[in-house]
C-alpha cells in the first residue's frame, strides 16, 4: 500500500515529529508537532514520498479539547497517487503555525482563508489578510463560538425597507 509506505518513510525521516500515525478509512493520517511542520512538508515534497501537490489545507475548531485548533493538510503524490493527511494541534490562545507559502504557492490563499475564518496566524506569510470576508468584519465565523446568524452588514438597511 502506497499510503503505508508514505507513513513508514515519514516515521523514518522525522522520528521526533510524529505524535501519532496510522490508517483511517484507507487514508494515511499523521499527527505532528506544529513546530515540525516545515520539515515534514519539505520532506514530503522533496523526499521519497514525492508529494508534489498541496491538495488542501484547512482547520477544525475543537473548543473542548486541549489543542483547540487542528490544522489539517492534505498532500498528493502525482507518481503514486498516494495521499497523506497531516494534522497539527494548536493552542486556543494565539494559535500560530509556520506558513507553507515557500513550498507551495497555493498555500498563500488557503492560509489566508484559514486566517480569515478561524483566526490562525501563519508566520512569514507575505500578505496575511482576509480572503473571503471584508475588512471590518469582527471575529472568525467558522469558530464554534461564532453564532451562525450574527450579521455584520457593510451598509445600513434602507429606511423604508421591510422590517423598518
Amino acid at each position, binding site marked *: 500500500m502506497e499510503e503505508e509506505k508514505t507513513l513508514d518513510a515519514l516515521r523514518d525521516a522525522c522520528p521526533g515529529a510524529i505524535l501519532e500515525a496510522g490508517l483511517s478509512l484507507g487514508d494515511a493520517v499523521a499527527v505532528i508537532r506544529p513546530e515540525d511542520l516545515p520539515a515534514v512538508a519539505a520532506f514530503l515534497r522533496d523526499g521519497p514520498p514525492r508529494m508534489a501537490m498541496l491538495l488542501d489545507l484547512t482547520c477544525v475548531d475543537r473548543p473542548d479539547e486541549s489543542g483547540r485548533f487542528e490544522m489539517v493538510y492534505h498532500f498528493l503524490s502525482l507518481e503514486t497517487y498516494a495521499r497523506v493527511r497531516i494534522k497539527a494541534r494548536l493552542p486556543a490562545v494565539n494559535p500560530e503555525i509556520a506558513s507553507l507559502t515557500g513550498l507551495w504557492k497555493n498555500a498563500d490563499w488557503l492560509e489566508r482563508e484559514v486566517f480569515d475564518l478561524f483566526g490562525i496566524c501563519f508566520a512569514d506569510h507575505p500578505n496575511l489578510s482576509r480572503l473571503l470576508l471584508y475588512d471590518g468584519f469582527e471575529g472568525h465565523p467558522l469558530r464554534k463560538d461564532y453564532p451562525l446568524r*450574527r450579521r455584520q452588514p457593510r451598509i445600513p438597511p434602507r429606511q423604508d425597507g*421591510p422590517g423598518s
Partner: protein
Amino acid sequence: MSGNFITTSFNAMLGWGRKYSLFHYPFVTACCGMEYMSAACSHFDIDRFGAGWTRFSPRQSDLLLVVGTISQKLAPVLKTVYDQMTEPKWVIAFGACAASGGIYDNYAVVQGIDRIIPVDIYIPGCPPRPEMVLDALLKLQDKIQHLEPDWRWKKKKP
C-alpha cells in the same frame, strides 16, 4: 387621412414605448445566472419581449436584474450600481436568494435585496425556470404600462 393616424393618451404611448425597450443590466452573481443565460439564449429567447438588449453599464439601463445571492460583502456594490442607474428604473429580484436570502440564512448573506434597494418584481425559485423569468418580465411590462397618471417620473424615495 383614414388609417394614417391614431389617437391615444400620452401616458399610454409612453408606457408602451418604455415596456418594449427595456435595457437590462444583469447583476449576475450565482447559480441563477445559469438560468438567466438560458432565458436569454435561443431556447427561451427573452428578446421576443423587447428585453434582449443587455447593457453592462448601469447608466444605460432601465432594468436591474439582480440574479443570485447578494452577500454582505457585495451589498455596497449592488447599492452603487442601483444608484448609478438613471430614472425611471426598475428592479427584479431573480431567485430566492435575491428575494429573501433563500436557503442561506447565515452571517454572510443579505436576507433579501429589498433591505438595500427597492424591488418591483420578485421571482421565486431556486433557481427559477426560464419560463418564470419571462412571466416576471411580462408582469413588469404590465406594471410599466400602467404607471401612475403623472407621466413626469415621481421620484422614488432613496
